[in-house]
């Protein structure tokens, strides 16, 4: 199943990205190669044909050029040019952060990030060199979505490793503490106390197995919103469950039931959501506590029920049960 979802995500992303990019090519979103006229107020001019100034872009012209109503007010943007004696050369437009679309995207994928580069031509100085008229032609922008999808793939892959390496410390801490509890017999003790509660949910697990205690502690940590502790404890629970797994590499019923409880996301106080609401100036940030609990309960109950129902139709089911019974 994960095979299909993974393939689906990857292929859909690529198809959609190509679609967007073809749309941009066909409708010429970035007006590649088209000329854009500006008036520049000079602020600084050296002898070698290099000058700085402020390019005045009128909203009317910009909207007409790109065929979209994106710019409400005229814009003044710093520009730097190098031109020869005939009035041709290159320019660099230092785009502000609140620049309008196409330009913002063009600047993001420009060779000099945040600036638009290109060829300037037909520079005419007027009014004792305090002002100039010129025509800009931007570096062409192509296949923006494809580039952003590729970049996202690489960024997320790096993030994945950072997340995993960042887990080492808390994993070590909780595995160390759990080992102390295990050796001291505390985990078996907890598992025995919880027997009536867990016999129904996890019939395959022996009643005094440390997995039960790890599952309980993971669920408790999740409910209290202690994510730093929840993940290591959950992984410990999975490792304990895997010790009972007769077929390494294939999920057992108990694992899937555990994950159903875990992904249900039952949190007594959803702290992140409340903090975002409070920061946004809510008059009652905590109002979602009750509704969140009900939503999460729906998810958890549905998940556990589904795991119990679906395990009957699973291909690997019988093998696992038989092997376990043989033990």
């Amino acid at each position: 199943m994960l095979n299909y979802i993974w393939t689906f995500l990857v292929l859909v992303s690529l198809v959609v990205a190509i679609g967007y990019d073809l749309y941009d090519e066909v409708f010429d979103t970035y007006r590649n190669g088209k000329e854009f006229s500006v008036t520049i107020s000079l602020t600084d001019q050296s002898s070698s044909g290099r000058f700085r100034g402020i390019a005045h872009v009128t909203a009317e012209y910009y909207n007409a050029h790109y065929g979209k109503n994106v710019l409400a007010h005229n814009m003044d943007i710093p520009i730097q040019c190098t031109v020869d004696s005939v009035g041709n050369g290159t320019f660099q437009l230092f785009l502000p952060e609140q620049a309008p679309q196409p330009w913002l995207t063009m600047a993001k994928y420009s060779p000099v990030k945040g600036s638009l580069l290109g060829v300037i031509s037909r520079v005419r100085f007027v009014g004792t060199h305090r002002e100039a008229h010129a025509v800009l032609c931007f570096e062409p922008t192509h296949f923006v979505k494809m580039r952003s999808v590729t970049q996202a793939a690489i960024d997320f892959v790096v993030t994945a490793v950072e997340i995993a390496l960042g887990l080492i410390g808390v994993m070590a801490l909780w595995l160390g503490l759990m080992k102390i509890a295990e050796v001291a017999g505390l985990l078996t003790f907890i598992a025995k106390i919880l027997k009536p509660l867990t016999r129904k949910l996890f019939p395959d697990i022996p009643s005094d197995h440390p997995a039960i205690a790890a599952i309980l502690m993971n669920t408790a940590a999740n409910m209290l919103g202690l994510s730093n502790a929840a993940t290591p404890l959950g992984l410990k629970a999975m490792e304990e469950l895997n010790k009972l797994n007769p077929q390494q590499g294939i999920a057992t019923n108990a694992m899937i039931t555990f994950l159903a409880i875990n992904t249900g996301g039952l949190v007594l106080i959803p702290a992140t959501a409340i903090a975002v609401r409070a920061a946004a100036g809510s008059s009652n940030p905590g109002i979602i506590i009750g509704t969140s609990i009900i939503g999460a309960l729906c998810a958890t109950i549905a998940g556990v029920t589904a795991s119990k129902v679906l395990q009957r139709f699973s291909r690997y089911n019988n093998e696992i049960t038989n092997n376990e019974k043989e033990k």
Partner: protein
Amino acid sequence: MDVVVKNSITILSIIAIPLVIALFILWALVKRVHVYEVFVEGAKEGFTTAVRIIPYLVAMLFAIGMFRASGAMDIFVMVLSPLTNLIGMPAEALPMVLMRPLSGSASLGLMSEIMKTHGPDSFIGVLVSTMYGSSETTFYVLAVYFGAVNIRKTRHAVPVGIIADVCGMLGALIICKVLFGIL
């Protein structure tokens, strides 16, 4: 929700970890366990477990990252919104429903954005924050938890996760409609 209950849960979540640590170590002292040695013994697994997760997490985040960046979400919202309109789900909440199981940071961003445009106390604001607060990043959890024990055949775990997510989102929608909306 009662303030007293809320405060006691908050206090419980603060003292839970110190209490658990104290309980473990005191119990171990009674049982004469060599705590430092045993701690080190258990902690050794930390590195190998974290490293074992890497390929699974890379695979999962690779696909999710591309999906996020491709803008495919907008197309899904466009296609699905006529359907979700039938059950009274506001179109603005649909990206949250689709993104929540895939990416925690993306859905957090969606939530903040909706708070800004619609206000945190609007129906959509309450609904979206309920949805965020009442579920987990299912696919991330699947990748990490199964990755830690090298499970590649997930059997019915994915359908179970999706069913749970759909029911959780529907539950959040219905309870918000009952309490705050016009049903």
